């Protein structure tokens, strides 16, 4: 891992952690529990398509998916090092974690562009 990348990765970790902390509980509660269990009325397919067609919504969703994935990559990477004592696999773990976040970001970008 080049040293110059570390502050940038930490910034992504920090930004992603903030996005997840502020917005994931409400999204998770609504789409994972309140809507499926009928506690609250879920939006219709058509209203969601209208909402997602707006560029600002798609920018919001891109940030909502991508940054928390990089937050995970950074945190999980160090948890594997320390928690499971896998220091000898440093490079492999870093490539797998950040690579997975990059793939998720690419799929999110592709999906959101196709929703216009």
């Amino acid at each position, binding site marked *: 891992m080049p040293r110059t990348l570390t502050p940038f990765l930490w910034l992504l970790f920090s930004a992603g*952690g903030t996005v997840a902390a502020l917005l994931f509980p409400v999204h998770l509660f609504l*789409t994972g*529990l309140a809507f499926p269990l009928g506690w609250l009325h879920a939006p219709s397919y058509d209203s969601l398509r209208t909402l997602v067609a707006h560029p600002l919504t798609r920018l919001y969703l891109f940030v909502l998916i991508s940054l928390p994935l990089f937050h995970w990559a950074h945190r999980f990477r160090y948890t594997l090092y320390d*928690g499971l004592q896998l220091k000898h696999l440093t490079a492999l773990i870093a490539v797998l974690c950040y690579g997975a976040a990059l793939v998720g970001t690419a799929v*999110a970008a592709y999906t959101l562009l196709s929703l216009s």
Partner: protein
Amino acid sequence: MSAAPRYTTYHPRWYRRRVSVWWWLESSAYTGFVVRESTSVFVALFALVILWQLRALAQGPEAYARVLARLHTPPWLAFHAVALLFVLFHSVTWFNLAPKAMVLRLGGKKVPDRLIQGMNYAAWLALSAAVAFILVRR
């Protein structure tokens, strides 16, 4: 002792005590640390769930209805119930650590920790209400 000793800046390997992989169960502070770090797994999984829903939304009404039906099954409800606890733990620990991660100074004085935490919780409340206002059908 014929071989010349090698000097390193670190302790020789044989002086290191072996630490169990379960070191983090030895004290509640360590366990809290590992639980806090592992919230990131649920954060990533839920990001993928959002992505999964968006892909279905792009594919059409039938695909989206299938995803909604899947989310209604007990395994997914159980997953979301557990994930909500972990994500809430992430939020609370994140906001409480915010004053330590970013020290704000106003007019040469350090902004009190409580104030920074309070602003984080207020932003959390406001954003949650805004998302619910937009998404929940009235």
